[in-house]
């Protein structure tokens, strides 16, 4: 019974994405990216193919994250505003199952987006590299879907949730470089302020996923990242989606409807 409820919620979440033309929107975004990439390729004097691959992969990744994140936020906000949530929960349905169903649905929505994003890469990059990049992107999008669900359940409103998702994503992508910079200052290595900053950055690194290790455009441009890296991405994604799902459930149980 519970599994069936979760599956139905997931199915309707995927149907909603299809009927709101989410996938076509993403295809349109990809077409725009490829037009821009082609323009840049024409400008390049050297390494034009490398530039095309790297730019299109990086822009596609960002577009996928943006489109999926906004879709998750918009979908749940609409459900809150239309009182669809109250209607759903008036049935014999646990709150945790509601979160699980929605989370599963959004993760399933992430898969076609990752597939659409990967198809053009097959034309530009070697097959193993494109496969690894696509899988890694799917895992990253699963984290983004879970993050967006957690944020909208916690904040209830679109703007704070979108701001948090954006900030979180940028920080998770930049944290490696920030750690590198904070660990190797050029002067006054032992100052208290620097030590505090280094601890703070290290603490952040423990609780944030290292998104800079996912779906790097360098894999497509310069050679595959390796299946070991993709496996590590899979472990990280599984752990983090579970953490965000549990956090979303925690907040959702405390919510007064």
């Amino acid at each position, binding site marked *: 019974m519970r599994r069936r409820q979760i599956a139905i919620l997931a199915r309707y979440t995927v149907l909603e994405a299809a009927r709101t033309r989410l996938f076509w929107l993403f295809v349109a975004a990809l077409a725009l990216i490829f037009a821009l990439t082609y323009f840049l390729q024409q400008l390049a004097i050297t390494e034009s193919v490398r530039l095309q691959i790297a730019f299109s992969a990086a822009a596609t990744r960002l577009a996928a994250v943006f489109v999926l994140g906004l879709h998750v936020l918009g979908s749940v906000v609409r459900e809150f505003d239309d009182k669809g949530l109250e209607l759903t929960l008036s049935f014999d349905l646990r709150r945790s199952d509601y979160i699980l169903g929605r989370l599963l649905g959004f993760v399933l929505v992430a898969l076609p987006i990752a597939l659409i994003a990967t198809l053009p890469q097959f034309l530009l990059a070697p097959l193993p590299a494109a496969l690894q990049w696509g899988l890694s992107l799917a895992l990253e999008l699963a984290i983004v879907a879970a993050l967006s669900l957690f944020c909208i359940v916690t904040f209830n409103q679109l703007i704070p949730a979108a701001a948090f998702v954006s900030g979180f994503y940028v920080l998770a992508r930049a944290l490696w470089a920030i750690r590198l910079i904070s660990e190797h200052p*050029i002067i006054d290595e032992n100052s208290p302020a620097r030590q505090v900053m280094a601890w703070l950055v290290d603490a952040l690194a423990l609780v944030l996923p290292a998104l800079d290790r996912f779906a790097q455009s360098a894999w497509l441009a310069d050679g595959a990242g390796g299946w070991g890296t993709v496996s590590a991405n899979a472990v990280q994604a599984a752990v983090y989606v579970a953490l965000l*799902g*549990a956090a979303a459930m925690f907040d959702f149980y405390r919510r007064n409807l």
Partner: protein
Amino acid sequence: MARDERSLDAVPQPVFAALIFSLALQIAWQASEPRPVARAEALLAPPPAAILRVASLGEPVPLAQLTTLYLQSFDNQPGISIPFRELDYPLVIRWLATILDVDPVGQYPLMMAAELYAQVPDPARARMMFDFVYQQFLRDPDRRWRWLAHAAIVARHRLKDPELALHYAREIARRAPHAPGWARQMHILLLADMGEVESAKILLGALLSSGEVRDEHEKHFLLGRLEAMENAGKSSPPSKN
């Protein structure tokens, strides 16, 4: 924002347990990952300056500064220092040039080139950095003269290449009219040091008679130098270092 929330008792125990367990798992996973360590080979080619400008969203200065710090993390690592000789110097120069393209007013990349990367005990690489400083000086002499002056001093005393030092010093005198007197007179002192006392005297005399030196103390100092040159020319051979 104030929220009308239910108490913690409303949260089922398994949800609590799942949250704690997954958080512990995340921390354990990240703690098991190696700490970020800069590797010389990890320094990739810089993006084109035009793309960096677009990425800066109209704020090129902070982006240039962040890029500088990123580059710096590849070379300055107390305890686990990457020897400069392991760095790909042409690549480092491309990064420095890109940063200067994005933020032409910034001095940081020139400081790194003249004072950090040029410290390498490999004269060829040090010269590479000095040449980069010289090329950048030519683009904006009045703002960048001091790094070329530094290069001239290092070329003279560490590289033991007075010709190169003299070339840089002459370029400062010729192209940087707003540089302070000591920098624009450096070539005269270098000439004297190289034993070209006559040339130095002629240049110093011309400088004094041109009226360019207005400060009485500076005039006094230069006259003293002129006199010292004459005495040194009579009594001792040129120095050899």
